[in-house]
């Protein structure tokens, strides 16, 4: 939470700072400093604040990750390798090969995630961006839940399992019952959230009652969820008629999220729901009493207990909320993009969401932006493969590098020779 306060300070620091701090430093600072140098030092300090800000660190972390990925891309590129073979006779060849490889890769990322410059219609032009938003939707949901957990001091690795169980329950409602449109969708969405919440309740309860470490329990529950869904998909109730593959029937249209921008785009109303949830998460953590308690527990459980808060209840609640959000991420998959339940429904969303929440510093708005960034990287995967001939795995590398760099601001600062802030803040989570 000190993060949020600090960044707020940075946005509009001067009037507030002067007003509140006026009584104390006036005698010493005001009298000795001529207004000229004060003006100068103020502009300097603004520059300094920009250089010290964590936003710049985030941007630089992304840049550094893309640069390192660039090295890998060059390394993997056959033309570059052949050109490197005769580097000393014709160095220019190698540089042009590097240029081609990097240009191809970065433009593929851009065209796959933002806009398609070769498109003939406007729809085709913006389609990549809508795809990015579609990919970001489950990441927003799951990232929000994890972020709440991190702020309450719980490290939940279990979004993967919670998502899967939520998706299983939601999809089951979606393809088993046949109800009219809004009711069916509503029930299926609630089913997803409920499934996730149940799966989140288990580690929360065990943590509160026995002190079992949530990291271990959630990791184990991920696998149990995976095998449970794999088992369910061999049962008649979950299996598609006439198929022996582990794949469920298609979810009824009445239980699917309606498309947001018409049939040309995959973007569905789940995205709007995700934004709504982001607002809710912000309200919950910043404006509600419960959120205050959760943050207090996260900051110092002993102090929170001394202050009369029920820490056990907070742990359980946080995990239930995080699980419900992860379950909603499952709804974005089974009721939105994929429309069926398989064991691969969760993909790597649960783990990606951890990086999303870390990148977004566990704040709802940050999480939304981080999810869009990673959603873009995921959306760019196929284009990378087709246009630049690069395996999608490079996306995973970029993602991991970004989070590593962001988690260690001093490393990024030393790489780009940025000044260190006056007092180093602890990284969230």
């Amino acid at each position, binding site marked *: 939470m000190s993060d949020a306060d600090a960044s707020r300070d940075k946005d509009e620091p001067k009037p507030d700072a002067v007003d509140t701090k006026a009584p104390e430093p006036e005698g010493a600072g005001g009298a000795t400093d001529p207004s000229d140098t004060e003006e100068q030092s103020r502009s300097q300090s603004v520059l300094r604040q920009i250089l010290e800000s964590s936003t710049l660190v985030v941007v630089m972390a992304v840049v550094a990750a893309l640069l390192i990925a660039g090295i*890998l891309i060059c390394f*993997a590129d*056959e033309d570059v390798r052949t050109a490197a073979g005769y580097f000393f006779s014709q160095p220019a060849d190698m540089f042009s090969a590097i240029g081609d490889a990097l240009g191809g890769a970065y433009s593929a990322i851009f065209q796959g995630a933002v806009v398609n410059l070769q498109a003939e219609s406007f729809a085709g032009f913006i389609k990549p961006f809508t795809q990015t938003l579609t990919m970001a939707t489950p990441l927003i949901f799951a990232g929000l839940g994890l972020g709440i957990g991190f702020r309450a001091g719980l*490290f939940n*690795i279990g979004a993967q399992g919670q998502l899967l169980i939520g998706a299983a329950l939601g999809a089951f409602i979606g393809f088993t019952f046949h109800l009219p449109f809004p009711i069916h969708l509503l029930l299926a969405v609630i089913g997803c959230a409920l499934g996730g919440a149940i799966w989140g309740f288990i580690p929360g309860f*065990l943590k509160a009652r*026995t*002190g*079992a*470490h949530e*990291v*271990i*329990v959630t*990791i*184990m*529950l991920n*696998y*149990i969820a995976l*095998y*449970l869904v*794999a*088992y369910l998909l*061999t049962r008649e109730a979950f299996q598609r008629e006439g198929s022996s593959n582990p794949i469920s029937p298609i979810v009824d249209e009445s239980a699917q999220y309606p498309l947001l921008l018409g049939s040309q785009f995959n973007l569905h109303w789940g995205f709007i729901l995700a934004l709504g949830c982001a607002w809710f998460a912000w309200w919950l953590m910043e404006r509600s009493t419960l959120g205050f308690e959760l943050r207090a527990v996260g900051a110092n459980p002993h102090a929170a207990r001394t202050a009369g808060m029920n820490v056990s209840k907070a742990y359980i609640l946080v995990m239930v909320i995080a699980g419900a959000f992860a379950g909603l991420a499952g709804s974005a998959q089974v009721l939105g993009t994929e429309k069926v339940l398989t064991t691969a429904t969760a993909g790597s969303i649960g*783990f990606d969401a*951890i*990086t999303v929440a*870390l990148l977004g510093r566990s704040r709802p708005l940050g999480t939304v932006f981080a999810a869009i960034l990673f959603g873009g990287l995921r959306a760019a995967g196929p284009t990378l493969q087709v246009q630049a001939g*690069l*395996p999608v*795995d*490079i*996306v*995973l*590398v*970029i*993602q*991991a*590098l970004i*989070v*590593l760099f962001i*988690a*260690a601001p*001093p*490393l990024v600062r030393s790489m780009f020779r940025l000044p260190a802030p006056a007092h180093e803040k*602890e*990284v969230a*989570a």
Partner: protein
Amino acid sequence: MSAMTTEASSAPQQGASGQVVKTKSWKATIGLGAVALISLLFFGFGTPTGVQTTFTVATSTDFIAVPSITVPARAAAVTLSIVALLLTGYVAFRANQFRKVGVWLPIVYGMAIMGALLTWAGADRSGTTIQLTGLLTSALFLAVPLVFGSLAGTLCERSGIINIAIEGQLLAGAFLAALVGSMAGNAYVGLIVAPIAGGLVGLLLAIFATKYWVNQIVVGVVLNMLVIGLTSFFFSTMMTDDPSLNQSLSLPSIDIPLLASIPVLGPVLFQQNLLVYIMYVVVIVLQIMLFKSRWGLRVRAVGEHPKAADTVGIKVNRTRVRNTMLGGAVAGLGGAFFTVASGLAFGKEMTAGKGYIALAAMILGRWSPRGALAAALLFGFADALRVQLGIIGSSIPSEFLAMTPYLATILAVAGLVGLSRPPAAEGIPYKK
């Protein structure tokens, strides 16, 4: 029974005279008892009467031929379940005395339950027998990466660094072993380079944990992701472009003379490849080094109370970095199991979550090499059992058997199998 009551009555006095307030923990008793009862009802009385289960123990290479053992199924399953119940009774007896039980008990208990399960599963299946030797051999084999992984975890966590990156270290080891082994055309070269890859991942973890004070779990998760991304990337580019960089090599199996001809255990323990023999050595050496040597004492001091360790002149962060690298190297060596020791070429994400199971084995083994070995063998056994029951066609869905290691771990961390206490300073960066 009478002995139990007299002991119980003397226990509170002991507590009072020692002036230490202790609480009796019945969680273990309840947990073990519940499982034993389920075993009795389901496996014991669930087995039809008058049928038999045949266990095959001999292999063709045995020096002394041991005949197959055929037991009356129901009686055997009931007896084994009752043995488990008796063991539960012993746990209750010890708990009443405020004392814990040794590592042997969960092992014997587990064997009894597994025996009951096997007897039940193999009952009345004419033509199919339970291949005991085969089951144990594959259990040991499947446990190899788990043993190395959980040893790695133990090494790191005893010095206070949480190592979630075991998965990444295994995968990195598997990748480099396949790559360099293929280049050299020799599986043993792969075995030599595998620890280097794991050690590098360990070094990264150590740097981020001790220099930048990043949450160690975060680093671990992200490093796993990074290694998966990197290895998959190189697999799809370099190794696919040039298949000669990713051949399936295999370590030859080495028979230890004499020992290998012991019935049952001989082929299981002493007809394995070099990696398995290295594993025996590493477990023994680490068990002795961690608990009986000066180095081990220092490592544990750093993990339990870094400030005190620092005060007496032990370099806390240096110890942690070294241990994490060493741990990474051990895990990397275990990673060689997936490629050169199994005779397979490298594949994307081929460790498939084994690193996380190793983590579980470490916790279940209470942060000691010996315990890690036992827990890893248990998980390996569960895995082998899944395969075996799949072959003889059991009515238990294989998914549920696959779940057992994870469920066992949750029960363990939730305290049902006994208190598991991690090193005190684990996960806390040491700042002077």
